[in-house]
């Protein structure tokens, strides 16, 4: 009786702030005691406390059984507490759930609607596949309950059931569809909600519902529902462009008329989706785009940050298909980059990539770099960094005119963002630029040397190390361009604490540099020099030799052995002759070493592998080593009998323990033989492959222009093989504080600014320089190093200074965009996959209709079915609308020959899709062509009438078209006539509208004097008593 109740518990926790954990542990002990008692009220109290404790992060699943006990109480008070606890701590995998099935069923069927309501709310949080299967029928029954409260909850519940038990979807769907026209707006809204969720993942199955939704959209005034419907249309239009055409008009009207920002925004979004889906053709839609962009501009300039954010978000969607219309608002978007709100800046960043041009790239990047210096919060800085790279690298560096500038920017990024997680990305960029823009290499290698020299190794583990990987690789690979090879070599050899894979690259590139230097010595006949070089490198490599990274160790070891070999050759002649000439063997070794690294890399498309034909005789499914013989079938399946015999003999041998050795060694020998063969085969295959590659026109060869093209294919390949995956190559950071660099900085805050300045100056001169320009243009290509001074002479757009090698070898019929990991997109655990069920609307409708209209003749029923079938669109026809049109025409032929002729002569015939339920356009009746409106259908069976009428109407429509040469839009309005009446015959529709209008009036608070004065628990902390200031009306107009 005097147990703690929830209030006591909360108070106790607040009074024990210092040892909360201890106090709670003590409480849990008490709760366990209480749960052991028989009194249900005591248990109920205990469970209520547990629910609170759960929120604080304590596991309460141990009390699952007690929770179920409380749930099963007949009192609503306990039941509610029990279901709340269950919804907080049970989950679909809870084993206890199987105990609950019957109890929940009882609650669902309870006389008291709140018992069922509470059960549904709880169930929605923890329903399992088993429960779904067992309770699906009960919930479906509730969908037609007389109480709207239960219908509404049951409808929502069905969605959860579908997720766990997809088989329920098909039988439940007709009912769900029926709920779309439920008299209660809440139920209607719930049904829309569920179908929207279903259709979001599998839109094509719900296309046939478009007419119903279209009708709802044009009749409803419930903004919540409208938003959902409009969102749904946004998902449907990509599948059915013709739907989009129908939507534009009502949506535009809504945009003009609505005062609710949320609705306006969703309308704009869907119009954008429509415009994207029908972007081809349709010239008159530029008006819609303009409207959207204008409205969005209003949102963006709004002082409400939320609207600004959403405006930018929607802009980015337009940008993809209609970049031009967005670009006119460049000023606005660039201004948002300076907004104080990070979310808004991020959205503006998203838009930025559409805003850049050759002209303004440098300036925008400069601004972003400025932001990076100021910005706090690594996530935002990372995002900035990513965007800088994204806008520069887009479309193969389309907008980068000067790659020395870009290199400098990358290096600056490295220095600015030592803690960034995008080290790998920068590394990729460095490599990509160095490889694909040959002229920038000389600049790059020197930058990279500086980076290697001064990159501050911070203790903090981050991915920026990766840039060292790239830097080391670049200086090694393009060592020919280095100004001071020896210095670079020494920098690489400097002992530093770096991750193993980067050190590995260091060692590898030390060899490259060594080979380069040795070759130079060779040319100069500098015998002492080469000896000194060998000794120096050997000595320094010892440090790598001791690395505990196996890769580094191995590479260092190989390098040492190689150099020692050379060293040995060098020392031998020193004994017999002091001529100083280099012994021929040494020359040969140096040349061989140089050969190892000769050859040039060219970019490889991600899917280039597909270009390589499968060599003859290579069977990828063949066993390399036969699987172990324990599996009887594997030894040799052709000789079943023999095998049986052998295995029998084998068994026998095993049993006797003698003579088995012979047999065993035999098979062992066989296997060993196949193993021995492998290296030979490999060798042979490799040779074959090399020949094949050299003869194969599809194989990627070094560009003929490269000086190293003369070098044999084999070395080329070895080089390429080594770096198969460019992405794996590590990258180094460039230090900037170097004397050489300092020279560049005179009077400029940032090195990269220099290029911007040059560009601007050049732009100023451009007019006078026009003549010169033509000449210098040619020289640019040959003398790129000097060229950037004249780079920006062009008047309109700066001419690219450097040329990007964009050759990507691609197999025929493969595009970069068709992703190979398409399959990966599908989450195998996504329950919506199972819900991809084709819902044949016709099949549902036909029987229902047949039962209702008993008087209808068989003929008409079948005709209706045929018609209904024509409405449901199968995915195939969605892909090829023309096909569908043809189909419908064929159907028409079957029904009325005369109509067929008309339909065919009417090439622009609008699809039937919308006709059934299309908008009750008030003007429609004015057209005065509705011969059918004398039938005034009752609500119950108006849909059947609709169908019949539609047929007639169709004939009507086409004939009218022939006569009047009306446009598609007029067809739209004529087809709508029947629906106009329908909505009139629908008293509920209007009632619900009225209700909604009432519902969404904003109520303002509040007579403060009405406060109840005494609240016992208010005393402890005044801080909590702050009123929440709710009276501020929300921006929304709901």
């Amino acid at each position: 009786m005097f147990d703690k109740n929830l209030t006591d518990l909360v108070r106790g926790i607040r009074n024990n702030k210092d040892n909360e954990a201890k106090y709670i542990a003590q409480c849990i002990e008490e709760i366990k005691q209480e749960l052991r008692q028989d009194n249900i009220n005591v248990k109920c109290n205990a469970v209520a406390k547990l629910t609170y404790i759960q929120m604080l992060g304590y596991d309460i699943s141990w009390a699952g059984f007690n929770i179920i006990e409380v749930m099963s109480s007949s009192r609503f008070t306990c039941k509610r507490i029990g279901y709340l606890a269950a919804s907080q701590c049970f989950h679909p995998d809870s084993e206890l759930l199987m105990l609950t099935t019957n109890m929940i069923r009882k609650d669902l069927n309870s006389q008291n609607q709140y018992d069922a309501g509470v059960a549904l709310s709880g169930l929605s949080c923890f329903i399992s596949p088993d429960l779904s299967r067992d309770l699906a029928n009960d919930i479906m029954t509730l969908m037609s309950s007389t109480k709207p409260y239960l219908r509404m909850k049951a409808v929502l519940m069905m969605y959860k059931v579908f997720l766990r038990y997809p088989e329920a979807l098909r039988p439940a769907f007709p009912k769900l569809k029926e709920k779309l026209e439920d008299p209660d707006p809440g139920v209607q809204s719930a049904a829309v909600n569920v179908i929207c969720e279903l259709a979001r993942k599998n839109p094509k199955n719900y296309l046939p519902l478009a007419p119903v939704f279209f009708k709802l959209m044009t009749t409803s005034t419930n903004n919540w529902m409208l938003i959902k419907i409009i969102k749904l249309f946004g998902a449907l239009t990509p599948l059915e462009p013709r739907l989009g055409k129908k939507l534009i008009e009502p949506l535009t009207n809504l945009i003009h008329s609505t005062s609710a920002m949320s609705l306006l925004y969703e309308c704009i979004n869907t119009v954008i989706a429509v415009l994207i889906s029908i972007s081809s053709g349709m010239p008159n839609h530029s008006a819609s785009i303009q409207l959207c962009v204008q409205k969005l501009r209003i949102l963006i300039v709004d002082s409400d940050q939320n609207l600004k954010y959403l405006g930018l978000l929607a802009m980015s969607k337009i940008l993809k298909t209609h970049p031009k219309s967005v670009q006119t608002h460049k000023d606005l978007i660039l201004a948002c980059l300076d907004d104080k709100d990070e979310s808004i800046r991020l959205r503006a960043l998203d838009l930025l990539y559409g805003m850049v041009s050759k002209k303004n790239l440098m300036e925008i990047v400069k601004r972003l770099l400025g932001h990076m210096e100021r910005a706090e919060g690594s996530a935002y800085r990372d995002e900035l960094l990513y965007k800088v790279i994204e806008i520069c690298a887009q479309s193969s560096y389309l907008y980068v005119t000067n790659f020395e500038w870009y290199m400098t920017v990358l290096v600056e990024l490295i220095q600015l963002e030592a803690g960034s997680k995008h080290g790998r990305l920068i590394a990729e960029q460095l490599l990509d630029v160095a490889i694909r823009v040959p002229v920038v290499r000389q600049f790059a290698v020197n930058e990279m040397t500086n980076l290697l020299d001064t990159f501050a190794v911070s203790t903090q583990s981050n991915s920026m190390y990766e840039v060292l990987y790239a830097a080391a690789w670049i200086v090694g690979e393009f060592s020919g361009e280095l100004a001071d090879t020896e210095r670079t070599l020494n920098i690489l050899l400097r002992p530093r604490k770096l991750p193993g894979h980067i050190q590995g690259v260091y060692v590898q590139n030390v060899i490259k540099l060594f080979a380069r230097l040795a070759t130079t010595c060779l040319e100069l006949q500098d015998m002492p020099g080469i000896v000194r070089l060998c000794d120096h490198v050997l000595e320094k490599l010892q440090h790598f030799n001791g690395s505990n990274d196996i890769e580094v160790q191995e590479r260092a070891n190989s390098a040492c052995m190689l150099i020692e070999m050379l060293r040995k050759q060098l020392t031998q002649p020193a004994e017999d002759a002091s001529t100083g000439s280099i012994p021929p063997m040494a020359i040969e070794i140096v040349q061989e070493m140089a050969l190892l690294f000769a050859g040039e890399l060219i970019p490889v498309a991600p899917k280039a592998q597909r270009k390589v034909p499968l060599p003859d005789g290579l069977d990828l499914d063949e066993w390399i080593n036969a699987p172990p013989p324990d599996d009887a079938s594997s030894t040799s399946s052709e000789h079943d009998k023999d095998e049986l015999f052998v295995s029998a003999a084998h068994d026998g041998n095993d049993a006797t323990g003698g003579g088995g050795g012979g047999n065993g060694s035999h098979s062992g020998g066989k296997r060993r033989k196949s193993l021995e063969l492998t290296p030979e085969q490999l060798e042979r295959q490799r040779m074959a492959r090399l020949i094949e590659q050299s003869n194969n026109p599809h194989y990627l060869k070094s560009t003929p222009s490269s000086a190293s093209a003369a070098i044999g294919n084999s070395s080329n390949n070895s080089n390429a093989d080594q770096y198969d995956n460019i992405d794996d190559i590590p990258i180094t950071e460039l230090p900037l504080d170097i004397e050489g660099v300092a020279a560049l900085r005179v009077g400029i805050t940032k090195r990269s600014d220099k290029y911007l300045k040059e560009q601007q100056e050049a732009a100023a001169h451009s007019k006078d320089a026009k003549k010169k320009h033509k000449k210098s243009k040619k020289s640019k290509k040959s003398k790129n190093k000097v060229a950037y001074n004249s780079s920006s002479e062009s008047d309109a757009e700066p001419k690219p200074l450097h040329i990007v090698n964009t050759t990507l070898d691609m197999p025929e019929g493969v595009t970069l965009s068709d992703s190979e990991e398409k399959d990966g997109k599908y989450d195998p655990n996504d329950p919506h996959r199972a819900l991809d069920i084709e819902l044949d609307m016709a099949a549902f409708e036909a029987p229902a209709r047949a039962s209702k209209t008993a008087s209808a003749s068989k003929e008409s029923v079948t005709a209706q079915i045929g018609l209904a079938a024509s409405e449901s669109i199968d995915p195939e026809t969605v892909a090829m609308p023309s096909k569908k049109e043809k189909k419908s025409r064929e159907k028409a032929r079957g029904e009325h020959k005369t109509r067929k002729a008309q339909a065919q002569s009417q090439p622009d015939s609008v699809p039937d899709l919308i006709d059934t339920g299309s908008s009750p356009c008030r003007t429609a009746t004015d057209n005065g062509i509705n011969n059918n409106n004398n039938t005034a259908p009752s609500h119950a069976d108006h849909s059947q009438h609709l169908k019949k009428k539609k047929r007639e109407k169709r004939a009507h429509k086409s004939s009218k078209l022939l006569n009047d040469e009306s446009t598609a839009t007029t067809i739209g309005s004529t087809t709508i006539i029947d629906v106009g009446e329908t909505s009139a015959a629908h008293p509920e529709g209007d009632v619900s509208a009225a209700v909604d209008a009432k519902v969404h009036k904003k109520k303002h608070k509040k007579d403060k004097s009405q406060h109840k004065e005494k609240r016992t628990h208010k005393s402890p902390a005044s801080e909590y008593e702050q009123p929440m200031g709710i009276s501020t009306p929300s921006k929304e107009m709901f």
Partner: protein
Amino acid sequence: MIKAILVFNNHGKPRLSKFYQYFDENLQQQIIKETFQLVSKRDDNVCNFLEGGSLIGGSDYKLIYRHYATLYFVFCVDSSESELGILDLIQVFVETLDKCFENVCELDLIFHADAVHHILSELVMGGMVLQTNMNDIITRIEDQNKLIKQESGISAAPARAVSVVKSMNIPQQIKDIKLPDLPQAIKDLKF
């Protein structure tokens, strides 16, 4: 779909947590913590949308929040929800709380976490918006409260007695007991 609804105060203390997808208790606390860190560092005059809770959701999910005095109301939703719509839903939620608790403050949420849950369950069910009309919501809640009052008619009497006893401030009441003025009484006593 709404994935989670969190209410916490300016110090990150959870006042209500409702997850419509299962996370174990540890993860729930981490999510609350992370969400608090994301939300709390934002000024009041910036927008109410936030991307990038790494633990909950992913790219498709957004945090939509409102800040009232000492409390943050955060909804984690996916792209099928309208951003402005959810903002309005939060407003409806808080206004409903305000009506039910009569000028709600953080203490109400602390001491009546269960009641807040019950109110919420009339707005959102299993991650889907159930009812957005405040009057309807309040009718439902009042109906249920009536039901509970009926049930507790007689059986609640002891409970009420207990709560009265518990809230009795005995030391104070002893002090307040008025005893007759003894000396005077003695004086008045006439032998």
